[in-house]
């Protein structure tokens, strides 16, 4: 005789660790919306009217709110990803392993470099 408790659907609400995990996974939702918006933009290039309509859609306040959320979500996801990366891909140079903090700093430097490059290319300079 024995029993086995079933995992309830609300398991992820039980502990802050699981809630943080679900938040990390949920970052995909606003990012999917952003991707769909960008895909719609590509399709709208087929006609001038469609492109103007798409520009109007992109300027709507609620769309801007979701896209801002997507930006924040991608930063949060990057934060969690960069923290996990040294554990998944540990780098050893000779006998010594590269400290996690160096790898995390290198990833953030790369991200900031790309952001600076895009601002310079499309934003009319820093």
């Amino acid at each position, binding site marked *: 005789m*024995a*029993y086995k408790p079933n*995992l309830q659907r609300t398991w992820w609400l039980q502990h802050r660790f699981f809630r943080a995990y679900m938040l990390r996974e949920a970052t995909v939702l606003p990012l999917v919306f952003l991707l769909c918006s960008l895909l719609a933009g590509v399709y709208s290039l087929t006609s001038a009217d469609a492109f103007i309509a798409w520009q109007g859609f992109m300027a709507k306040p609620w769309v801007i709110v979701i896209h801002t959320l997507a930006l924040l979500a991608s930063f949060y996801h990057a934060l969690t990803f960069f923290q996990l990366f040294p*554990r998944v891909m540990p780098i050893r140079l000779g006998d010594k392993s590269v400290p996690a903090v160096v790898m995390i700093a290198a990833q953030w430097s790369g991200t900031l470099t790309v952001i600076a490059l895009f601002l310079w290319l499309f934003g009319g300079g820093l």
Partner: protein
Amino acid sequence: MHKEIQIKRYLPEEHAEPFWQTFRVPYDETTSVLGALNYIKEELDSTVSFRWSCRMAICGSCGYMVNGIPKLGCKDFVRNYPAALRIEPLAHFTVERDLMVAMDEFLQHLEAVKPYLIAEPSEPHKPHRQTPAQLAKYKQFANCINCGLCYAACPQFGLNPEFVGPGAIALAHRYNLDSRDQGKAKRMPVLNTHDGVWSCTFVGFCSDVCPKGVDPAAAVNQGKVESAKSMLIQMFRGGA
């Protein structure tokens, strides 16, 4: 000082369902959760059943859920809990009696990944030397004591008991990284499956609760890199 300790009891010959029982236990700064359980067993109710042995986080027997978090009873202290303690059997396992769970599922997964050196020594009677650098590659993963806390912390194992799970994969990874081992090709088919490394979504709680700092989540996700390489090699060889 006294503390209220609630234990989730299960006495199948008396009650069909598990029930909570509260005990009032004296404690001081040095009382471990296991110490409190032993006090209950010796002084209050001798029918309370739980596993324990070494009292020093070596044997891995005294894993319980303490206020919902998997803990080793000997390494966790009553003083850490300002309010009452609720002790339950390890989550995601079949409960046989009180705080005792059947570890069969974990042991089956452990056996499946062949957690031992597989090697044909060229000179059987001579020691197989290993440099400190070769040892450093796997040493962290060799600290596992098979306590099962990582399984109780893993929601993916809770949802799918077929998932090989953090502890067994960490040990598979430990032997795959060992310079003396030649058994990687025998372990990878188990890790390459959906129930192998790919069921893990890097929740990471297994590493948080590990009492020995093994970081099984890192092992599982390093295993994904190895699995991807292994599957790619098989594909090019036409063996997939």
